[in-house]
């Protein structure tokens, strides 16, 4: 069976989100001895960011969710109208918005995990 590379990546990112998301949710809930409230306190969150493995997980979740989410929105929008200009406008706009989100998220991860602040 053949898939378009865009949709194949949609499925691959779905599996990756499952792995990264499980680590993210577990870290801020039952794996944290301080519980949910303590787990989102400033110094607890900062200390999570300082762990390079967790920082890499955050970057992974950021990129995969951005791709999966914005590609999903693109699929929905392309269902509404099928012509070349609409297709191009939707793709370019979502690509730009997705890039802004990834750049902003990466900036946060770098600033906190490398102690630039």
């Amino acid at each position, binding site marked *: 069976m053949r898939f378009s590379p865009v949709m194949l990546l949609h499925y691959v990112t779905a599996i990756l989100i499952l792995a990264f998301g499980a680590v993210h949710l577990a870290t801020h809930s039952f794996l944290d001895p301080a519980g949910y409230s303590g787990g989102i306190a400033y110094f607890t969150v900062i200390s999570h960011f300082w762990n390079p493995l967790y920082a890499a997980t955050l970057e992974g979740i950021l990129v995969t969710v951005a791709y999966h989410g914005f590609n*999903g929105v693109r699929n929905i929008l392309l269902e*509404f109208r099928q012509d070349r200009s609409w297709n191009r406008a939707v793709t370019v706009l979502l690509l730009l918005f997705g890039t802004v989100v990834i750049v902003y*998220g990466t900036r946060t991860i770098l600033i906190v995990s490398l102690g630039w602040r």
Partner: protein
Amino acid sequence: MRAARPGVKRWFGYRHLSRTAFMMQRVTGIGLVAFFVLHVFDVGNITGGSLTWANFLSVAETPLGGIALILVLASIGFHFMNGLRLMLGEFGVTLPKPRRPDYPYLPRFFTTTQRLLVILGAVMGIIFALLGYLFIFLGVD
């Protein structure tokens, strides 16, 4: 007869579990994308220091914030399981063998396995929501 125009309105108004799952996948997906974008920009507050973070938490930790998080968790549970069903279907795993269409031409793609996976998605959503309630409101860790 005029062809039906595609649009958000057409997601609703069908009484079949497969159509309800289709609508729910889209609604939860859009909700999760909105949450994701907000979450990325909200967490960015941490670069402003402990006071900025505390201000952000004072909004996020209200009962309304908690309810929103529980809805997000429920959406994750359903979207994940229904997405798995769609992926399996795409690979032909849960689909029946092709056969000649006979009257009354009932849809055959929606097998018992597919139906069970949609129901499992709803159950996952409820379980995720309950876990969220336990962690967020009851402070269970």
